């Protein structure tokens, strides 16, 4: 089976973020970027399915040049090659524009199954995978916590998370797009051998003009959303800060828990 997996690079969740000069996004200077969390799980799931079926995994990444690092990591984990969509004409899009570009690139490669993460931790549209499916005319499923390929390889049985601690058990016909939720598996670490091998694997760049999609429907130009500004959230409730060394903080907290929260007996 030929499995496509789409990955995004996002700011490290531990990073301290500052609003950038244009006020419309963060200042990326000095921020570390990592593979998006649910994408890591999607990569692992793709590798497992490929191993079971004797297939191959092809990684797709859309984002600025630094996305190459994320693809290199996926190659080190075991993908056989990668496709990078870093053409400025493809960047800055909403989920519809981004999904359109990825779908076009996947169509050129051909795939039996596409895996994506369930949501990116930066923009969080949680839609890129389903847009890819829509573009390709395939079924999809979002928030998947279990994937099992049918014997005849014509469909997958999936376990899909619902609210309230329930799962939906269903089947979708292949080819399909599966949007993987974090926690579905335990992602492997890259081996030294894998890291070395990745250096020789191909990362093919695809330009916007090669996708066969009207330029007005790609990237920022094709996006229906425009971020005007970003800012720290404002809240109604003002937190009461407790400062000092650990012992002083502990003593102050005990007093709060005893006298105000009234939870100490």
């Amino acid at each position, binding site marked *: 089976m030929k499995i496509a997996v789409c990955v995004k690079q996002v700011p490290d*969740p531990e990073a*301290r973020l500052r609003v950038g000069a244009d006020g419309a996004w963060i200042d990326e200077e000095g921020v570390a970027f990592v593979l998006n969390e649910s994408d890591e*799980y999607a990569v692992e799931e793709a590798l497992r399915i490929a191993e079971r079926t004797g297939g191959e995994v092809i990684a797709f990444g859309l984002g600025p040049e630094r996305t190459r690092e994320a693809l290199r990591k996926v190659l080190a984990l075991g993908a056989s090659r990668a496709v990078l969509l870093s053409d400025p004409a493809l960047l800055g899009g909403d*989920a*519809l524009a981004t999904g359109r570009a990825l779908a076009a690139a996947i169509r050129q490669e051909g795939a039996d199954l596409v895996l994506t993460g369930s949501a990116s*931790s930066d*923009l*969080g*549209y*949680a*839609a890129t995978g*389903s*847009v890819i499916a829509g*573009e390709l005319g395939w*079924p*999809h*499923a*979002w*928030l998947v*916590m279990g994937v099992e390929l049918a014997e005849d390889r014509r469909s997958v*049985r999936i376990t*899909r*998370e*619902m*609210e309230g*601690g*329930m*799962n939906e*058990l*269903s089947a979708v016909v292949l080819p399909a797009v599966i949007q993987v939720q974090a*926690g579905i598996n*335990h992602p492997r670490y890259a081996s030294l051998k894998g890291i070395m091998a990745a250096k020789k694997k191909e990362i093919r760049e695809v330009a916007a003009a090669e996708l066969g999609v009207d330029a007005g429907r790609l990237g920022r130009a094709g*996006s*229906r*959303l425009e*971020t*005007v500004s*970003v*800012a*720290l*959230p404002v809240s109604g*409730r003002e*937190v*009461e*800060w*407790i*400062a000092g060394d*650990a*012992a002083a*903080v*502990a003593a102050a*907290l*005990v007093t*709060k828990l005893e006298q*105000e*929260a*009234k*939870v*100490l*007996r």
Partner: protein
Amino acid sequence: MNGPVWAVVQQKDGRLQRSGRETIAAAQALARELGTSAEAVLLGDGLAAAGEELKGMALAGARVVEHPRLATYTPGGYVAALVPLVREERPAYVLFPHTYQTVDFMARLAQALDAGLLPEAIAFRRVDGEVRWTRPVLGGKLHAQVRTVGEGTVLVSLQSGAFPADGVEAGSAPLRQVAAAVDGVDLQREVRGFESAGGGAVDLSKAEVIVAVGRGVGGQEKLAPVEELARLLGGELAASRPVVDSGWLPRERQVGSSGQTVAPKLYLALGISGAIQHLVGMKGATAVVAINKDASAPIFKIATWGVAGDLHEIVPALNQALKERAGGA
């Protein structure tokens, strides 16, 4: 003149879902702001009782789209049922609750309609004659102001709790049954059943004190002081999702939109950043203590008491202080 604002809602056990009432409240508010009308679309099967509820709301119309094939959600069925309605009436905005179900099909609906897609809004406001939406980004660390560009309907999903359900304006709504064009369509998914996700063995909803840990705890081997704190407080141990995904604590202790909803007298959030999916599960707590080494973490926005520091230093000191107190010090 703006097209109407629609709210797409569903029922559960014969009542409109709370998230649906929140969506209607938002549609009414947005319609007032734009000088247009608010309307509702009720989707599913067996909708008589929920339809009665809609009749008592201030809506220019309420469409009831009822069909046995809509009894169980499928993306193919829901998209097929909604496409002809939106195409015919051209609402300016179609609002949905930001539920897992909506997220599953909303993008497909947007594509079928060539509509805009704006997921997870938490507020809107009118600036210079246009609507600006607020949505959390970067795990809630920042809020983005977003405008829509281009022509045509925009689909928007609204984060739970952003528009209180008790804001629904009462009135009367003409109810209309609308045919659902779902006979013979590809449902895109064969739903075989449902199962419990494996929680349930631990009921955190009754706990008076909850000590919750996030990814900031740094590993399973570092949980001992936190477990001791939970014991000293007579509380339950809970976790954010990444802690469970990493296998440090079992799924049955997860709090949040895909875990349990809790409302203790005291919630201690240790090394938890405060993403919206976590907050929806614990914002009902009476008091919240947050300990996080990042003073700008969103968890502090809902905390009663905040400590900007390392949990691995504070927690042992707190345990010590609690033991001294219990020892009659």
